[in-house]
């Protein structure tokens, strides 16, 4: 019959529309505005309305999500920042669009380089969020951030991130990437233990 195909298509559209209300009745209040509701709407048996009501609701990003890189620092016992970066330059070398600039610190007295960056720049207008810097950093010092809300009115002022802007505490890193953080800490602890075992007992070396 002519027109049957169009009708069955319209029925499918209607079905999608009705499903929203059926689902609302079935799930109730928690369908909107709760983490559970968001999870339900992104699961493989989502039906009806599919919309995430940004900015009231935010779709949680997975742990591996990568946006712009940031530098990790540990907080020492005396409250001082210990930047993990040793300015080895691997991230700057591996960066595909070459958007990382690192200035190595130099000891003012001897003129020898110190393993910490004097300055660290990332031009986010060039950065392609590929995550290579974080992937190959041997010191777990540069990691990919989850903060994607970075719209600005002026790129010339805000889009070259300097060291100060890039530094974020390790606690923040642990919060956004708990699994990676735990794995890296465990690896580090294992390495330390192996080192301690290999080292002769204190006092005998001298």
């Amino acid at each position, binding site marked *: 019959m*002519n*027109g*049957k*195909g*169009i009708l*069955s*298509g319209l029925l*499918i*559209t209607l079905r*999608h529309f009705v499903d929203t209300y059926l689902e609302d009745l079935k799930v109730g209040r928690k369908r909107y505005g709760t983490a559970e509701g968001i999870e339900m709407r*992104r*699961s*493989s*048996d*989502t039906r009806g309305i*599919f919309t995430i009501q940004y900015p009231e609701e935010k779709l949680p*990003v*997975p742990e*591996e*999500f*990568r946006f712009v890189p940031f530098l990790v620092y540990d907080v020492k016992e005396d409250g001082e920042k210990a930047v993990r970066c040793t*300015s080895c*330059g*691997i991230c*700057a*070398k*591996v*960066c*595909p669009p*070459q958007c*990382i*600039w*690192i*200035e*190595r610190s130099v000891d003012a007295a001897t003129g020898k*380089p110190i393993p910490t960056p004097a*300055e660290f*720049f990332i*031009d986010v207008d060039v950065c*392609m*969020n*590929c*995550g*290579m810097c974080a*992937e*190959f950093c041997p010191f777990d010092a540069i990691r*990919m951030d989850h903060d994607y809300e970075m719209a600005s009115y002026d790129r010339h002022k805000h889009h*070259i991130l*300097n060291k100060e802007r890039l530094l974020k505490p390790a606690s923040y890193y642990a919060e956004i990437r708990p699994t990676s953080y735990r794995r890296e800490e465990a690896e580090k602890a294992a390495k330390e233990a192996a080192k301690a075992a290999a080292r002769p007992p204190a006092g005998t070396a001298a």
Partner: protein
Amino acid sequence: MSDLQTQTLVPQLDTIFPDWVRPDDRAGYQGYIVETEHLLAVAKALRDTYGYDLLSSVTGVDYLPEGKLEVVYHVFRTTGGPIFVYKVQVPRDNPVVPSLVPLYPGAELQEREAYDLLGIRFEGHPDLRRILTWEGFAGHPLRKDWHEPYFEEEAKPYKSRWPEGQVRRAEDLNPFADNVDYPAGFDPESLVPDADDTLYKTLFRVQQAQHPEIKTDAIVVNLGPQHPSTHGVFRMVALLEGEKILDLKPVMGYLHRNHEKIAERNTFLQNMPFTDRLDYIASMSNNFAYALAVEKLMGVQPPERAEYIRVIMAELTRIVSHFIAVGFLLNDLGAFFTPSLYGIKERELIVDIFEMVSGSRMMCNYFRFGGLARDMSPEAVQKTKELVNDRLPRKIDEFDRYLTENEIVRQRCEGVGVLTPEDAIALSATGPVLRASGVPYDVRRAEPYSIYDRFEFDVAYGLHGDIYDRYLVRMEEMRQSVRILKQALRDLPEGPIMTGKPAYQVRVPAGESYGRVEGPKGELGFYLVSNGKPNPWRYHVRAPTFINLTSLAPMSRGGKVADVVAILGSIDIVLGEVDR
């Protein structure tokens, strides 16, 4: 030799044409080098006697130290089997090569590209104009001695980044404070811009040939580069007689981002995230092809688990791409937005998996040489299983019920934009466009790569070669992808995901390689030449949609303007790949 043998064995060209052809004996190279003046004869024999009927790729390589330009041809048989390579070499200062367009019309756009970017002149080409840059552009950018305005060094990593990295934008160093450079003594006011005159002239010639005696009122209509039906910044110049299309020229290059030039400055690994941005709907399959090409050169094999995850990702990508393709084809037919919204909904669920696995929704950057960047977590596997076993088959069926029998879709698509199998092969079409014309050629079957030989699936193909068949082929391919996915997820083994240690500097031995996969849109190939340095000497992408566009004009001629929009939608172009 019997006919069957000549059509299936790989010919020993140097014994067949001892005076014209010599084997390419450079270390790591394959194929044959043909004398320039005998190119047409050899190519004809290969096509007619030995059955190499589809010219896959034409590209040039600039061997600056030897003072030579080389044109590389890749051909294959649509009955299956490996790819066959032959080359011609010409001096750099006078690069003239006979055009293969008379034999293989599919060479047209590719030869224009080689002319544009490398300055190789193809004698006998019907319309040798610039294609990715514009008329009047200074120089041929892929030549090794041509430097872009922001030129810093021949190869990355640049020294200015570390250890004395003083941040500055590239434009700060340029005398014009912008990404431009002009020839010495150039006066901007003396210039008369081309204003597309050359382009329009190529159209009028056709008109005069068709109607020498009658004065017709054919008009030129430009669609694009900003047009809702062109899927991006693509332009079509149509010559119309009333509603009828007399001739049509695709105009591209509006998204030419110099992928190949940048890639030749990059290290091998640095190119991986750039490949994401070729066909940006199907980044995983771009990664796949590039990883295959480099792995061929390096001689490494990824571990089992990595192979399975690669296949899972590639097939998910195919489903995403086909959902988008079908949805947007319907957009072009006037079903404004609802079908594509349903398609994008499924895409969202699949990109959630990509995001979980690779960290990004679109630009996955997930493959590494000899493995993968990171493992697929059990949650991601679980989510994929739920999607593949339950939702996707259901949703593909729903799409099918929703659209396939729709009377408007059938009226608009059946018998429109027909491409016969002979034409499809001659025009070098690949992917769903070729298969819909009744040529069941699929690289996954014809020359299985990775572990595709382990899976059971059917090659979808059509019989009529019209828009409707292309649509049906895509629907069927989604079902077959689900079938492969089910098998791959069932058999997914545990184990490592990387052969060797992940390293940011990879050693790639000298030589050439061509890695190809069956991308969602056709045969996606990467032609690489390495000279043992950390950067590729030549990096060429055989972009399926770019070459499929060669068949746009033949399909559109004689049709109506409204059909062109649907025909373009059925080719399913992605401009990132067309223009690179």
